[in-house]
């Protein structure tokens, strides 16, 4: 039946499926456990039974990561201009408008400054719910400016990624955001300021192939899908099913691309500890 099975997966349908659940009870996508909303919140949106990490937005992540009330947002209202006047089955302008209305965000990342256990940091947190967390000129520019701020203030920067990759509707402009963010990180690195990359489910495509993989430390949440090509494309290429756990955080750790896998409820303390180890004298 057509509405049970889509022949082609899309970024946006995935987002809806795993977004923060409405209603009081939620079924865990990992083990099927029925979890109460309050309990889910207390558990940092992870399953108490199987540790499944639900996809959450920047609002929740900033609460978990930063000291209460310390977040000062930058460039909050930066918006896409649709420079190519892009249109597929729907116009890009419409998509942007709908996403802004639906998510109450202006694009797929929020950036700013804050504190982690009193330590000044610059942060960026991506929102997968905004057009699949895709990176166009707004995400690229906001991340670049956050890196510039970290360099100027000599503050460590932490970026939490969740993204399907570069945003197709901005075509070559999107692709160039990979170069933009990576070159800003090179400048930051030359100044000796730390960058901690936190990879959450899912981080793929152009975001993985740029800033998300370039942390001085790469930290992943358990079970997050992290890769360059999506599993569907790889399956088509090799004509075989993929092994269990392929491209998950633990796989990336085993293959040497992630330093450490950390449960969301321990993320703040872990980042704080690392900063003391590498940054505070």
């Amino acid at each position: 039946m057509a509405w049970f099975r889509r022949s082609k997966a899309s970024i946006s349908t995935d987002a809806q499926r795993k977004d923060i659940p409405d209603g009081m009870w939620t079924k865990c996508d990992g083990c099927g456990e029925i979890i109460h909303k309050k309990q889910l919140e207390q558990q940092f949106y992870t399953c108490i039974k199987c540790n499944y990490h639900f996809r959450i937005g920047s609002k929740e992540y900033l609460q978990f990561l930063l000291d209460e009330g310390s977040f000062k947002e930058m460039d909050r209202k930066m918006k896409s201009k649709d420079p190519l006047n892009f249109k597929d089955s729907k116009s890009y302008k419409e998509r942007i408008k709908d996403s802004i209305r639906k998510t109450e965000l202006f694009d797929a990342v929020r950036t700013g400054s804050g504190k982690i256990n009193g330590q000044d940091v610059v942060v960026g947190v991506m929102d997968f719910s905004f057009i699949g967390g895709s990176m166009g000129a707004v995400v690229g520019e906001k991340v670049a400016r956050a890196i510039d701020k970290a360099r100027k203030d000599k503050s460590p920067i932490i970026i939490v990624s969740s993204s399907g990759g570069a945003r197709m509707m901005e075509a070559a402009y999107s692709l160039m955001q990979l170069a933009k963010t990576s070159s800003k990180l090179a400048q930051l690195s030359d100044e000796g300021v730390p960058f901690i990359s936190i990879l959450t489910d899912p981080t793929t495509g152009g975001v993985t192939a740029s800033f998300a993989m370039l942390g001085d430390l790469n930290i992943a949440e358990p079970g997050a899908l992290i890769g360059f090509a999506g599993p569907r494309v790889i399956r088509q290429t090799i004509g075989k099913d993929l092994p269990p756990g392929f491209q998950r955080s633990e796989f990336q750790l085993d293959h040497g691309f992630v330093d450490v896998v950390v449960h969301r409820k321990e993320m703040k303390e872990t980042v704080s500890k690392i900063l003391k180890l590498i940054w505070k004298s």
Partner: protein
Amino acid sequence: MAKTVLEFEKPIIELEKKIAEMKKYSESLDLGEEITTLEEKVNQLRKSVYEGLTRWQKVQLARHPDRPYTLDYINMMTTDFIELHGDRSFRDDKAVVGGLAFLDSEPVMIIGQQKGRDTKSNVYRNFGMMNPEGYRKALRLMKLAAKFKRPVITLIDTPGAFPGLEAEERGQAEAIARNLFEMSHLPTPIVIVIIGEGASGGALGLGVGDRVLMMENTWYSVISPESCSSILWRSWSFKEQAAEALKLTAPDLLAQGIIDRIIPEPLGGAHRNPPQAAEILKGILLEEISKLKKLKTEKLIEKRIDKFSKMGEYEE
């Protein structure tokens, strides 16, 4: 003579054949006048066809199987080329070639993706789709160039980075990201040339430099028109529309401020006259390199990072 003929090339090729035949007979017969008329006609036809090409037709030209590839340009433009192999870690990726050579009297490091001409060589070259070790090999060669103060030229021609299982295991994303990071502050001039297809991160992984040039009949974007069609239209058959929407041709990218310069090709495309295409490219490369060499390294890097930092449009 072209081996593969695209649909829109047909009428031109046919006329050219006719002229060639007439010239053969003109020794015994006086056909001078008719030949001149036909030559005028074919010139007009060429102009009208190539000036009116759609974006999708340009994509087809960029993929023309008779187009010169990286090694063809290296052979036609340089002397004393010595190919350098391997990433010193895993293996030698045959989808990318690189090495030292003289461009006239200028010693350079030249690196580029390499496609094959037939099934066997395409399998050997993996259709110009690089694996992580390819990006790492390229980076090793670029660092070598920087160490000995040699400019780097990269020639881009790839349908994308290889989306395979082993590529993921060996960190395709990390390899590309690392190249973007390192290329952005590599202390030597880098000139990038799109010579065919520039698909996505797989192309950009060799694409960060001081000057980004595109040959006239090439494309460069975040995704191929076919894949874009399959994702956004949920069907493979909207590739023409996708190519239009992506605005992926050389004039498009020049207008977007993403490339610096278009390199003209012989009329009809580089495949119609490869030596001439190589000659034009070589002249422009020498000119660009001599300008870049005048800049102090610090200034060069600062300008390079600024250039990419300015790309993209947004509203505040």
